[in-house]
């Protein structure tokens, strides 16, 4: 099934994707000429393969469940936000807030991700081939963020139980984020994630950032200084 967004609307595409795809035999879908359109392939709830041939704008593949969505270009703000399951693969770079507040699934970004990657993530796994910008994994609650390049300022600020693995340099850690020892289980988790994302790095090159859990309880003696 091919949708050419030079001739058809995003509403045509998403209307089809929201229909009964089981009854249609779970067809592979190809999207041509996205040209930066917003909300391409959002809210899909079926195990279909969707290939998007070009750059997308805001919120592409948001709220995905079950689908494997391949973006063969760059993604605008909020790619795969709110994803619950399935996978989203961005072949280029991603703008701000990639994978924001997502509960599950795998988001792979081959190149860099901008600021706030994985903000408030709630269970998604995100693997970024390049760098991530400032405030990535801000208030991240669950899931794993893997950064094969460098991380910007305030990485993991106010982190809950999400875990961050970074291969390169970290400009600065956010409040309550700390470097923690890598265990055999971390190596195993990381090997699996890197393998599924298609990156050939040695897990031993990565460091683990987790929550120091000092913000979990109100500390009256801190006098508002954190």
């Amino acid at each position: 099934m091919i949708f050419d967004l030079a001739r058809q609307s995003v509403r045509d595409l998403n209307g089809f994707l929201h229909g009964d795809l089981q009854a249609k035999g779970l067809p592979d879908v190809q999207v041509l000429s996205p040209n930066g359109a917003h909300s391409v392939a959002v809210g899909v709830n079926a195990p279909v393969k969707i290939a998007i041939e070009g750059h997308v704008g805001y919120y592409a593949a948001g709220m995905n469940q079950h689908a494997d969505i391949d973006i063969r270009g760059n993604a605008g703000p909020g790619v795969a936000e709110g994803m619950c399951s399935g996978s989203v693969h961005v072949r280029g770079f991603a703008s701000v807030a990639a994978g924001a507040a997502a509960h599950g699934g795998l988001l792979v970004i081959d190149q860099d991700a901008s600021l706030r990657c994985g903000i408030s993530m709630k269970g998604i796994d995100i693997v970024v081939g390049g760098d991530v910008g400032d405030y990535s994994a801000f208030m991240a609650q669950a899931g794993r963020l893997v950064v094969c390049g460098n991380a910007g300022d305030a990485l993991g600020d106010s982190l809950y139980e999400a875990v961050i693995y970074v291969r390169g340099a970290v400009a600065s850690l956010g409040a309550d984020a700390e470097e923690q020892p890598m265990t055999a289980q971390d190596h195993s988790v990381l090997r699996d994630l890197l393998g599924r994302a298609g990156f050939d790095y040695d897990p031993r090159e990565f460091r683990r950032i987790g929550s120091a859990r000092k913000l979990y309880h109100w500390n009256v003696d801190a006098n508002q200084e954190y």
Partner: protein
Amino acid sequence: MCGIVGLLLKKPALRPALGELMLPMLIGMTERGPDSAGLAVYREPVAEGRCKYSLYVSNGRADWPAIGREAGKRFGSDATLDANANHAILTARADRDAIAAWLADAHRDIAVLSAGQAMDIYKDIGTPAAIAERYGFSRLSGTHVVGHTRMATESAVTPAHAHPFTFGEDFCLVHNGSLSNPNDVRRQLEHEGVRFVTDNDTEAACRYIGKRLAEGDDLAAAMTKGFDVLDGFYTLLIGTRDTLAIVRDPFACKPAIVAETDDYVAISSEYRGLAALPGVASAKLFEPRPRQLYRWQVQ
């Protein structure tokens, strides 16, 4: 929300097509800014000693031929006036004070939108497509252009509130975002003798940076101070006679994407604004990083 677009042509042979290349960029940003649009186009500078003024008549009616003859009598026979709907470009050997005095005296409904040797300004209310049609944007030629589509969030929708804003000569600025301290910046500048035309937040940013440049800072020094002074969300696109520049606030709250080829540098809020450019499929694409000045010179 607003849209910004910028285009600088590296190859002189492309300069006659500046408007044609830019037009799909501006129209591509209509959803981000449907209520007003405007642009500054930079062209071959006028002869030394002459200055161009972009004029705008607020009531939509002006007897431009008569006003042109009047300018000729007042500022010398080589003064020219090129009318374009309710805008006109006056070129004359006269400084800004002389022009202002003449207009205050004889044409109170005509505003001076800009002054300089290279820059012309057009801005108005309506959709980008309607404004482009009204002023023939597709026929513009020049070295670079700074454009804007506006969705007003903090001040009125009038031609004066539309972007670009200007300061001094050949300096303009457009803005996507909202400043949280424009009144502080305005009060400080007014104290230093700067006059404002509107209550628009972008005008405060424009006059702040423009004044720093007028006092001798280069763009990098002006923006270093600007990052400390301007609070809020902003992607700013700046034009000078020979430069196109962009900065994003430290949180990169507002988007921007750059496409660079051997032929041009194109900047837009979103890729949608770049998609129609020839050769964009093989262009180097990147998002400007926060708190970093990017600039390109006319060669």
